């Protein structure tokens, strides 16, 4: 399972990098077409950039759950023993799982709503963008499951080892 998740994580990372590179193209085209006349004025450039952007944000949010790089605030002292660490992690990850479940449940409704819509300019089916939200929910849940398993392992560690 860890192997699968690591592979999935790598895939998401690659897609993210490629999308970021692609994002530059439509905006550049927009400027070029306005000032040079070398290429026609595409009307889909702005929309393509925006949709690409939404995917970048959602994929970034998925990757950050596994990397634990979503920002948090340091108010309480840091847990010291493995047991405390496991417990603190469990509270965080189970709470985050609530939002993941909400995204799966209501993201499904949202995506279904998108399936009957087409975009204003290029006419593509909106499901192809709206699906990013329930997919984010599923991916968060997978990565959170991995984190929760790690927390439980910490909790199960015998207290004697914690003195180190």
């Amino acid at each position, binding site marked *: 399972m860890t192997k699968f998740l690591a592979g999935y994580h790598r895939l998401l*990372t690659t897609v*993210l*990098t490629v*999308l*970021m*590179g692609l*994002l*530059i193209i439509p*905006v*550049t085209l*927009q*400027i070029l077409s306005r000032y040079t006349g070398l290429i026609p004025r595409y009307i889909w450039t*702005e929309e393509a*950039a*925006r949709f690409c*952007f*939404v995917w*970048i*944000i*959602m*994929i*970034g*949010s998925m*990757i*950050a759950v596994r990397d634990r*790089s*979503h*920002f*948090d*605030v*340091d*108010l*309480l002292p840091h847990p010291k023993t493995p047991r405390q660490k496991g417990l*603190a992690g469990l*509270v*965080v990850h189970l*709470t*985050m799982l*609530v*939002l993941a479940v*909400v*995204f799966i*449940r*209501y*993201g499904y*409704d*949202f995506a279904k*709503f998108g399936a009957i819509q087409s975009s204003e300019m290029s006419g593509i089916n909106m499901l192809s963008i*709206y699906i990013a*939200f329930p997919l984010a929910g599923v991916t968060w849940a997978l990565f959170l499951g991995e984190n929760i398993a790690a927390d439980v392992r910490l909790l199960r560690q015998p207290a004697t080892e914690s003195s180190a």
Partner: protein
Amino acid sequence: MSPGEVSLLMFGVFAVLIVVRIPVSFALGLACLPVLLIDNRLNPVVLISEMWKSYNSFILLSVPFFVLSANLMNAARITERLVTLARASVGHLPGGLGQINVVVSMLFAGVSGSSTAEAAGIGSLMIPAMKKQGYDTSFTVAITACAATMGVIIPPSILMVVWGGLMSVSIGAMFLAGVVPGVMIGLFLMGTVYVYAKVRRYPVAQRASAKEFFSALRGAILALITPAIIVGGIVGGFFTPTEASVIAVLYAAALGGVVYRTLGRKEFGAVLHESARLSAVSLFCIGTASAFGWLLAYYRVPQAFVGALSGWATGPISAGLLIALAFLIIGCFIDAIPAIIIMGTILLPLAQNAGMHPIHFALIGVISLAFGLVTPPYGLCLLIAASIGQIKVVATLKDVGIILTAMLLVLLLVIVFPELVLFLPRLIAPQFVD
């Protein structure tokens, strides 16, 4: 539910979640849930659709591009050229390296719109150098972090782009308005370094010759015209802020890849990935913050807030002080962009009520939030600088406090004298201001 009950419930849940270290972006989304489930007219799909609406914005697209261009500047070692120029200009003043640090931050601020990229780029160059010359680590880290806040005050600025997009204020005018307070903060910081250097007897370097100065200027000149391209392009109406941010990316890539040849394909890929990740994490938070802000507005919390304060925050100065205080406090706990989305919409009626100019209101907000970048527990620039300096954040707080006091004076001046921020846009682009 009344506006009071709703805000108590939402901010209460948010505060509890933040304390137990739920990531801010998730906490904002989760804090919306109870209200969305209780009210029959609403349901949690609203959370997702509000997030989608906030991401589906051409203006926000400039955020990853500004981050990318700043990171390209660092990777292409353009930052080093700026340091050389700063050394040739102010290296001979008391506290030489400290002065260089402040000046290079001002130069970098003009080239990039991101304070965190600035703290990382300049910090990794200046902090080791200052430590080696015998500067105290806590002072070194504190001055680096505080100087990096100029990144979002001196144009271009990511925060101003977001603010302008959200509240329909001219971004070009805000950029121009940021110049004077930004330079003032720089001068105040240089004064602070001077006093530190005198008290603690920090080393002084030899004055650079005119020849050295001009050679350093030649080395940095191509980077230094970036702000002219970006700000000039936006103010002159040649391109939108998003287009300008892409031009900044292409320009930085051309400088690094073609002119200086310091940027290979491999580095470019790594920078692309790092910038996408960093901006995605902070942009994701915009979505949940927008849903949070939308709910507050739905229950007319901003209007209730103005009503509650109508007794004593009626003049522009008292309203300005209150606005600065609110942004300074929330800036301690959350990132600047979600803070704009949540507090900006709450405070807007208050500013209008007091008859403040929208650009004056915006600059007070942006400067206060820039200070939030160094105030713990959530001060990103300070966290970055402290980790480069390998020192605990707590150990730097005394120096941060001293330096921040000098900077707060600038904020106070901006609140009391609106002309400080308004005169430059009025002079250059009056059509955006009145």
